[in-house]
């Protein structure tokens, strides 16, 4: 069974981040033999005075392919993990969304997109989660993290939102050809940030902590033109500040 596991608002100013918590959960699911998991994505939600958040209001989500009969143990484990690990003062929420219950996914995607534009309520989240048969649970504080958790699942499902957690590692190399980039296990596609296509002989200079974004269901590395004297490369990885909108 394929599911999306999404969490929100687990941290405070001093604790480990929600992204690290998501990664630890994914590692534990693999270690217990319950699931094969995919990369964690970070999804930006609305920043608004009426929404409680620590500093950035982002949700974290990852896909998991569960072994038969593993849904209930996975939910129980993840709930226990959040109860134990979440920081004081946070409002953690968990969503576990089996893909087979989502139909065409339109309602969940719509919820996620709305959470980027407007203030939603726990009632909105429970209504949709209940109708679709998803797991939603609160793990302390006000429990309002279930809104972001559900939204994170919807945005991940859309395939067109969020940045992948973690920076890409190229073993210290800072100039790579397109085909070498595409050999990286966490890169599905390499595209110019401003559109168009790369030529097969494109040579890319790797900047500080490059990362991919989720576009059309793919992990995409964006690159930008480079025309600096003395550099062999004709492209560079797109700067982090330009990826802020993802």
């Amino acid at each position, binding site marked *: 069974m394929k599911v999306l596991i999404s969490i929100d608002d687990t941290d405070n100013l001093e604790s480990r*981040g929600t*992204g690290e918590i998501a990664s630890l959960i994914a590692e534990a699911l693999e270690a217990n033999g319950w699931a094969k998991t995919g990369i964690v994505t970070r999804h930006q939600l609305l*920043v608004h005075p009426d929404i409680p958040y*620590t500093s950035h209001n982002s949700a974290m989500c990852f896909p998991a392919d569960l072994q038969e009969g593993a849904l209930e143990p996975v939910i129980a484990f993840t709930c226990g993990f959040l109860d134990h690990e979440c920081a004081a003062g946070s409002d953690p929420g968990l969503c576990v969304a089996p893909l087979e219950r989502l139909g065409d996914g339109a309602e969940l995607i719509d919820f996620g997109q709305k959470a980027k534009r407007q203030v939603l309520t726990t009632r909105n989240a429970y209504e949709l989660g209940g109708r679709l048969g998803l797991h939603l649970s609160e793990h302390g504080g006000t429990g309002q993290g279930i809104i972001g958790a559900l939204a994170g699942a919807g945005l991940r499902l859309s395939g067109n939102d969020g940045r992948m957690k973690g920076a890409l590692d190229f073993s210290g190399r800072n100039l790579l050809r397109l085909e070498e980039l595409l050999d990286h296990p966490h890169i599905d596609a390499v595209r110019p940030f401003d559109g168009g296509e790369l030529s097969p002989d494109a040579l890319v200079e790797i900047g*500080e902590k490059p990362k991919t974004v989720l576009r059309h269901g793919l992990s995409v590395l964006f690159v930008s033109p480079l025309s600096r004297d003395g550099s062999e490369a004709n492209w560079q990885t797109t700067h*982090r*500040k330009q990826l802020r909108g993802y």
Partner: protein
Amino acid sequence: MWQVAWNGTREFTLGKESWGAAASAALECQSFAEDVEEELVAEDERSCYNCRYRRWNPASFTCLAAP
């Protein structure tokens, strides 16, 4: 660069795209602490935009570090 509210919190008045000013402010700050990797947005590692004590708001951010 900063506006101080009645409760002592400081809001960065230059918005979300003043990369140079945010880096300069962080260089002078004793409380700067780099946020987790997935929340970094500035190329300058040391930037208020990358600090775990910045709390984004619709127009800019508030600094939550002790003054």
